[in-house]
């Protein structure tokens, strides 16, 4: 059993490399297909002042006159050697923009991820411990409704209630307007973080809750739970010692697999709160035709999400060796 773990991990890593290469090709092709002309996008309003010769000069300087395959080769080579290019919208190297944006997004996404995991797991355990009671019904309804709620709308509602109605929280951005970045205190940062964080967390909860609940219901009906009850253990005792323990690892795998949703949610939430994070950079890059930044964000997010999925996949097998066995059967019919 233990002998094929290195092989499994190795195949996953090779797969990951293939996946990233495939994404790079697809993303580049899509960006090339776009009707947005990079020279026009760069010039913006100055377009009227530039003659055709100068445009050609810019195109040649950027290598736009060469065939797409050559362009891709150059770009891919540069990316592999760590040079992601220059962002035109932010007028800075893409790597710098990314680093700055990740710095703003990481606390938001990381905390939302952890909080939604903890909250979702707790709710799932509580609901699953006593299925078909009122607590269970309320939690289940909450999770179902949340799963159908658009992230950005929830963010808008929070904004209306807490920022506009009650004036408890700021309306936008990651720091007070008109204050130098180095003067912003930690408290102010948290104050600006809180609403986006709530919006992201509340939405992330739904899936984890439903998964944990299903698992808990299954465990509470198992023979060992019945036996523990027969021995006189209380329901809470069984739920925590047998239920929560067994449901924890599946919940963690779901949490890792939900990274993609989290990023999608953060793009929308950051847009609503004008929070200067990675998601907002992606939107801006897309709207203003900033191809290098858009590609870099796509690759960066793919890397994180795929690593998350790979971890989830490997964890699944650690938790339940039967999954590996079933997979082998399917692969060789």
């Amino acid at each position, binding site marked *: 059993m233990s002998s094929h773990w290195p092989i499994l991990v190795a195949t996953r890593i090779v797969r990951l490399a293939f996946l990233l290469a495939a994404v790079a090709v697809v993303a580049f092709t899509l960006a090339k297909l776009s*009707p947005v002309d990079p020279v026009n996008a760069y010039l913006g309003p100055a377009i009227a002042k530039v003659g055709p010769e100068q445009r050609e000069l810019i195109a040649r300087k950027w290598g736009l006159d060469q065939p797409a395959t050559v362009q891709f080769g150059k770009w891919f080579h540069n990316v592999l050697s760590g040079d992601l290019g220059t962002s035109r919208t932010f007028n800075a190297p893409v790597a710098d923009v990314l680093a700055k944006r990740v710095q703003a997004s990481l606390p938001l996404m990381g905390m939302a991820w952890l909080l939604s995991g903890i909250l979702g797991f707790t709710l799932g355990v509580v609901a699953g411990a006593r299925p078909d009671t009122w607590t269970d019904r309320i939690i289940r309804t909450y999770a179902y409704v949340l799963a159908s709620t658009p992230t950005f709308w*929830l963010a808008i509602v929070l904004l209306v209630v807490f920022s506009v109605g009650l004036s408890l929280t700021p309306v936008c951005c990651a720091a007070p307007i008109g204050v130098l970045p180095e003067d912003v205190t930690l408290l102010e940062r948290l104050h600006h973080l809180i609403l986006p964080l709530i919006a992201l967390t509340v939405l992330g909860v739904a899936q984890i809750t439903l998964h944990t609940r299903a698992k808990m219901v299954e465990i509470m009906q198992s023979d060992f739970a019945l036996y523990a009850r027969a021995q006189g253990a209380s329901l809470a005792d069984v739920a925590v010692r047998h239920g929560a323990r067994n449901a924890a690892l599946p919940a963690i795998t779901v949490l890792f697999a939900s990274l993609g949703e989290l990023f999608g949610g953060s793009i929308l939430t950051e847009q609503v709160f004008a929070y200067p994070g990675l998601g907002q950079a992606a939107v801006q890059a897309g709207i203003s035709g900033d191809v290098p930044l858009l590609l870099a964000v796509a690759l960066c997010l793919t890397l994180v999400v795929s690593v998350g999925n790979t971890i989830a996949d490997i964890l699944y097998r650690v938790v339940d060796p039967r999954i590996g066995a079933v997979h082998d059967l399917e692969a060789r019919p």
Partner: protein
Amino acid sequence: MTDAALTRPVTGVPVRRNKRIATIAATCAGASGIAVVVVGSLAFGNFGIEPDFSARLLPPSLAHWFGTDQFGHDMFARTIHGLKLSLWVGVVAATLSTLIAVGLAILATTCGRWADILVSFLVDAAMGLPHLVLLILISFALGGGTHAVIVAVAVTHWPRLTRILRAEILQIRHAEFVIASRQFGKSWWYVGQHHFLPHLVPQMLVGLVLLFPHAILHEAGLTFIGFGIEPTKPAIGILLSDSMRYLTAGKWWLGLFPGLSLVLLVLCFDAIGNGLRLLADPRQAQT
């Protein structure tokens, strides 16, 4: 499972009421919600599209249930129009997505090992990318607009259904009734028609309906951040992103109602999808 499993239901689980009727009722409620949207949008016609500058930014009242926006559009009519647009995008995108899923599942299960590996890789790749980033890229490549949203949503939503259908086909192929049928000399064509299709059609239908909510929500999100449906059309995403400018001025109704209606529409589809799934699946037999 042994005797313990069989005797367990006696341990104090109350006898449930007829669940099947409840499921059918929920499904019908979902369907009527969707019918209201379609009929309402037809009935409103151009109402909500034409501006009325005498009634700008009015709060909700009996005359304007959802209030009015900065051009005096009735928000209720606009929301219904938006929901119909969402429905339209959802129907086309989900159908295309289901077709892709069916095609890939058949390819994976009938064209040998390499085809199977390729399809699994494609599924993993599509699931590995964050949906919204892929949606932005595709929409960017096609230059935005309604058709770009439809393509983008259709191209990103097939992986889960492909997985389900592939597993289902593999399971049926090794089922004893299929092996027996083959050994009686029936052709694959006959077996496909008489043994595979009856199992696959319900799965496909349910998959199609359950794709709707995802498709609609992603369309709204994509439109909201400016990569989707043209700003001139009353899509829900457009209504909400327009409302952003007036929210800080206290015009809360512009943001609240369109989103709430979208949630209700999605819940309608969920109700139908889950209802169909429960009704079609003999293993979930409800008495």
